[in-house]
Each structure stands twice: as C-alpha cells, then as structure tokens.
C-alpha cells in the first residue's frame, strides 16, 4: 500500500496537474477562510495561500521549479488579465476624460517617486546593493519589474517577491491612507493604488468600485511603461 501511494506521488509530483490544482484549490480555500474571518486585509487570500503552499513545498521537499511547472498556467493568465482591463477602462472612459491631465502629471510624479523612495528608504535601512537593485522597480507589475531588475543587476526572482509584498502593502492600507490625506474621489484613489501597487492594488480598487478598478488598471499599465523608461536614468542618478 505504501509502495502504491509512493508511486502515485512520484507520478503526480512530475505532472503540472498537481501543483496547478493545488494552487487554485488552496487559494479557493483561503478566500473562504478569509471571508469567514471577516476579510481582514492582513490575512488576505494571496498571503494565506503563499504561506500554505510554501509550507507544503518545504515539507515535501519540492523544488520551486517543480512547483512552477504546474503553477505557470495560472501565472500566464496575468497577461490576458491585463488585456482584459481594457473593458473596465472603456466603461470608465468618462472618469478617465475627467482626470486625464492631472493623472498624467500624477503618473510622472508617482513613477519617479516610486523608484527614488524605494532606493533611498532601502539605503537608509542598510540594504545590500543587490537587494536595492531588486527593490527599485517594486511598484510595477511583476513581468516588467523583473526585466528592469535584471537590467539594473538585481535578482529578478527576489523582485517578484518584493513586487507582491508591495502590492499587498498598498492593498492593506493604501485606500485608507489616501482618504486620511483628503483624497476621497474613487478615480483618484484607484489611480494612485494601481500606480503604487500594480495588480494587487487594482484588485483592491475593484472591490470599491468598477471606476476605481479601471483607473487602477490604467495606472498600472502606464506606470509599467513610464518606470521602464525612467528606471535606467534614475538608477544612474541615485548611484545604483
């Protein structure tokens, strides 16, 4: 019997099926648990799912590469989901037109601030050079941030983690922080949240209104582009 279970495990451990199913199933369970707890922002399903999966991988001695063979199918959907943001964007066109020029200024300020604040804060707390270079593009969406980190000489896979933590941090208190400082318009808050916290900020904004989510998605896309242009220049200026 043990032998049989072992051979099933050996088979499953090699197919993408196991970790693909596990990723979706664990996320699903975590959304239910999080909802049962009253959806506390700190115990969000993404964080809970990551902790659970990391624990399972460590316990079963499974390398990340094996896990990713299965999970890549979920990861891949980040691209189509970005394209899909065109629909809420279209539905919010009137809001977009209302804040177009201020948003453009906010984009430039936000992108430059995002890179500089990350590097300066990181230096202040004494991070190593390599970690600083991985931290610089933290506000933008994972695939672009990884590309920039590589250009700057950071660790792309560390950047992926930093980007997700940034997304969770923004989702955790961004909306409330902006309200506290008098920014109460849904479109404005969504734009700032998407710019500073990419897809997770966008997901959070979508919870408040479709308009906030649409502008968050737009800001995420635009900041990805702006930051890839500004990062090499600012990196030189910041002495990276």
């Amino acid at each position, binding site marked *: 019997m043990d032998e049989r279970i072992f051979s099933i495990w050996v088979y499953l451990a090699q197919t993408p099926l196991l970790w693909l199913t596990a990723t979706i199933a664990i996320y699903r369970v975590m959304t239910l648990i999080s909802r049962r707890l009253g959806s506390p922002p700190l115990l969000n399903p*993404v964080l809970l799912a990551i902790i659970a999966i990391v624990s399972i991988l460590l316990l079963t001695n499974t390398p990340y590469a094996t896990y990713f063979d299965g999970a890549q199918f979920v990861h891949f959907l980040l691209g189509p989901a970005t394209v*899909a943001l065109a*629909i809420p964007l*279209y539905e919010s066109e009137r809001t977009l037109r209302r804040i177009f020029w201020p948003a453009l200024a906010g984009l430039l300020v936000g992108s430059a601030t995002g890179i500089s604040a990350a590097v300066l804060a990181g230096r202040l707390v004494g991070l190593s050079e390599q970690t600083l270079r991985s931290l610089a593009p933290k506000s933008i969406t994972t695939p672009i941030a990884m590309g920039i980190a590589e250009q700057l000489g950071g660790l792309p896979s*560390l950047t992926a983690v930093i980007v997700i933590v940034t997304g969770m*941090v923004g989702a955790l208190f*961004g909306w409330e922080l902006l309200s506290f400082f008098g920014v109460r318009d849904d479109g404005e808050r969504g734009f700032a949240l998407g710019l500073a916290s990419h897809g997770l900020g966008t997901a959070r904004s979508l919870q408040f209104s479709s308009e906030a989510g649409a502008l968050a998605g737009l800001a995420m896309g635009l900041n990805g582009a702006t930051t*890839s242009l500004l990062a090499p220049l600012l990196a030189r200026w910041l002495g990276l």
Partner: protein
Amino acid sequence: MIDALLGILLFQLIGEVLSRGLNLPVPGPVVGMLLLFAILRWRGGPPAQLSATAHGMLAHLPLLFVPAGVGVIVHLPLLAREGAPLLVAIVVSTAITLLATGLTVHWLRQRK
C-alpha cells in the same frame, strides 16, 4: 466564451509582437490592453460575452499573483538576513508613492 478568450489572446499576441518588434518600453499585454480599448471606443462597447469573460477573469486577479509569490521560497536565507529592513523600506516607500501620486492628481484637479 471561446470567442472572448480568443479575442483577448489575440490582442495580447498583437501587443507582444508590436512591443518586441518596435522595441517599445511598454510590455506586450499593456499594448494589447490599449489596442483593445481603442477598438472598443471605435465600435462603441464590448460584446456581452467579452465583457462577461473579462469581468470574470478580473474577479480572480489576486489568484494570479500566487505562483510568483511562492517564489519567496528561493530567497528564505536572504530574507532571514535582510527581511525586516526590506519590509520597512517597502512599507515606507509604498506609502510615499501612494501619497505623491494621489495628492498630485487631487491638487491639480482642485486648482481647475
């Protein structure tokens, strides 16, 4: 649903080709998003099916970040050393970025 999915993938593909072919700093999916947005404006809205598929996909957006997040497992030793200061740097700089962006947009709109 298949048409909607095909449409989304096609726009991503076109975006990817344009982005790489023209060496744009904008990533392929974002180019795809902007192209689809332009088409939607031109034709006056998405077909119902596309709208439903897109909203369905976006409802589960956070799930898509799980695989990359699990990558933390590769960096546990580095995080044991630098995790705490790194978290401080992330929290502080994210707060600054949020406020710089939000307040810029907000103030400029009030001045009008």
